[in-house]
């Protein structure tokens, strides 16, 4: 007699155990072929199982995916990634000091957002998720603005309505981050469909964690993108962990996330997400394809969430503390830095000077940001502004409620003045 048995996935290592990434097959840099941008999804299926890598173990750029970027561009990239990391560290500290309520670092994943934003055109529309703050940094959103959002202060772009990190930037063509996860993925496809309806050359790009790829929205996005051949790049950032659930709980034990693409007729490309050059090259390939009416591309970025999920999370309860040190694809910043040093275009001294400069910049930005208020210190937003933007024009019932709150606040103010 045979009986069925439920398979409950287990990560390779839990706290106290030795980190084990043997489940990851990592091919040598330069191995994967770079196909024509209009190749059919089935023709290039192997790109979903292999891994596009450009930087080899000596920090040299090799193989057909080498994007041959100018050293100046790589120095800019290094600056963006380092600034992202310094910004994250400062905001984490400010959360620990109680100045902001919440934060999410992107440590170890900086190459994904930075390389992709640099490879795309400024008019391309970005539909971000958590840990893509690098998009804002590359496109030039000031750190003060990002900090003011986290502070919910008088300069907050969200006017005090959202938790920290839920940024958006209309002028910079970056959509709003949603705490519901995955919702932005099919929205990006709709945006791209509209671009195609209007006959524009702009494309959309969206990001989702491997964990949230289990949501129906992921399936909707890939179905609609394939059906309408929408000009969109759909990125799965596989950082191995969705809070405490390892990537096996999104189906990663059976297939790579990139392999889901060919099932829909969409090319799936798996890339070393900690290799700036590889991410840049793959993104440029997908963007060219989208603009040339080749349709969507699914990219899986293999990376590692070095930080906790958020400031509310303690990863030492579910994964080995030293996992990040054992991560076989290394640190994206270190790898790009060594590459530049190998080219003779960078040095430890310049790196140290840049670190110092960026640290000072972050400090100056924070000093400015808090002058616009914090959650606990003024100046503060007017609470009655909460009734605005629910609708384009405020309906009568909201006007009545706004009046009620206004009266209540006036009474409180009067009582405080008396007392």
């Amino acid at each position, binding site marked *: 007699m045979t009986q069925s048995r439920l398979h409950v996935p287990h990560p390779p290592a839990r706290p106290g155990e030795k980190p084990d990434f043997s489940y990851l097959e990592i091919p040598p840099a330069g191995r994967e072929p770079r196909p024509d941008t209009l190749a059919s999804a089935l023709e290039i299926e192997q790109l979903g199982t292999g891994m596009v890598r450009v930087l080899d173990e000596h920090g040299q750029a090799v193989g057909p995916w080498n994007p041959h970027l100018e050293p100046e561009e790589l120095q800019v990239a290094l600056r963006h990634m380092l600034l992202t990391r310094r910004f994250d560290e400062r905001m984490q500290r400010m959360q620990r000091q109680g100045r902001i309520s919440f934060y999410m670092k992107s440590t170890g994943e900086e190459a994904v957002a930075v390389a992709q934003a640099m490879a795309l055109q400024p008019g391309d529309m970005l539909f971000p998720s958590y840990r893509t703050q690098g998009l804002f940094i590359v496109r030039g959103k000031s750190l003060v603005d990002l900090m003011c959002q986290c502070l919910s202060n008088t300069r907050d772009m969200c006017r005090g309505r959202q938790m920290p990190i839920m940024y958006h930037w209309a002028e910079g063509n970056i959509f709003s981050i949603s705490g519901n996860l995955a919702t932005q993925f099919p929205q990006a496809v709709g945006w791209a469909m509209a671009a195609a309806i209007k006959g524009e050359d702009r494309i959309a790009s969206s990001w989702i964690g491997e964990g949230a790829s289990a949501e129906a929205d992921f399936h*909707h996005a890939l179905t609609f993108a394939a059906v309408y051949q929408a000009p969109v790049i759909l990125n799965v950032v596989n950082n191995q962990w969705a809070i405490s659930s390892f990537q096996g709980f999104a189906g990663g034990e059976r297939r790579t996330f990139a392999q889901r693409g060919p099932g829909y007729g969409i090319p799936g490309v798996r890339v070393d997400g900690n290799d700036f050059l590889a991410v840049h090259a793959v993104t440029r390939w997908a963007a060219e394809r989208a603009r040339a009416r080749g349709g969507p591309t699914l990219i899986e970025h293999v990376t590692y969430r070095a930080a906790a999920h958020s400031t509310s999370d303690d990863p030492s309860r579910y994964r080995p503390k030293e996992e990040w040190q054992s991560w076989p694809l290394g640190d994206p910043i270190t790898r790009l830095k060594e590459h530049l040093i190998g080219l003779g275009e960078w040095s430890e001294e310049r790196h140290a000077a840049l670190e110092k400069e960026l640290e000072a910049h972050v400090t100056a930005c924070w000093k400015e940001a808090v002058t616009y208020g914090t959650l606990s210190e003024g100046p503060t937003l007017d609470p009655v502004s909460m009734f605005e933007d629910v609708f384009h024009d405020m309906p009568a019932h909201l006007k009545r409620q706004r009046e009620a709150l206004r009266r209540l606040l006036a009474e409180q103010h009067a009582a405080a003045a008396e007392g």
Partner: protein
Amino acid sequence: MAQMNMVQAINSALDVMLGRDPRVVVFGEDVGYFGGVFRCTDGLQRKYGEHRVLDTPIAEGGIVAAAIGMGVNGLRPVAEIQFADYIYPAFDQIVSELARLRYRTAGDFSAPVTIRTPCGGGIRGGQTHSQSPEGVFTHVCGLKVVMPSNPYDAKGLLISSIEDEDPVVFFEPKRIYNGPFDGDPHKPAVPWSTHPKGEVPEGHYAIPIGKAEIVRAGQDVTLLTYGTMVHVAEAAVQLTGIDAEIIDVRTMVPLDVDTLCTSVCRTGRCVIVHEATRFSGFGAELSASVQEECFWHLEAPIARVTGWDTPYPHAFEWDYFPGPARIAAALRGVMEAR
């Protein structure tokens, strides 16, 4: 003026808007080539092309998500959800995304999406083709919720919905697509050509969202209702001979509290009728609003006549449906109350 049923009036509204505004796109399941399972989009793809009127995969969540993305990219999407019963896979996209996009971005992003969806029973549709989920959406901040009761209103309100800067969920009571229905399924069907609201202008006109309409003036009691039940209520009033004022609410959000409460304060009595289930239904909001504004004028407790609090049962449709007899009993009840 032309004679139109509600399907033709909706088709005409879409036709007018597709013709006037190049940003308008119409899509949904079976909407394009075939023209919709209820024929509301018949002929539109032929006229405007498949980039403006298109079929979609069977994925309501994807349809609404795509509509949001299109709206953000400057289009005015009109998405059809084939039956209101099928809208739930799109719930997260509607509630968490569409309704709150303007708010969460402090006005920097918005998506002027209209979601059209046939609702209501009386068509032997059982629990998956008969629901009236309007109350689920009236509870969501940031959505406008509309339900017309006749062809003239359907066209004017749909045009207003498409022109509105905010997202609108537009419910179409499918039992009255082809004619007004008085609640008696055994009578022969009556076409819209017999009804004054079957006269519909060919061109553009708008009925403002947020305005109720008094469809029958009366002195003794105010009957608040919308959709199919407007016609059932008229039959019940005839049955009783009570001089009721019937108000078609038309727009649930924003709600025309002034028109409703002015009437109730004058008549001193109020009966609320809807097809949807009772508990936490939209009638509860109507009842509370009336009570807050009209308490000192009320001569009797406010009565509600609704679907029973069960799923919509296939075999017992006419025992479930709040027909004229139940409405008549409620009218008599509030008139007798001291």
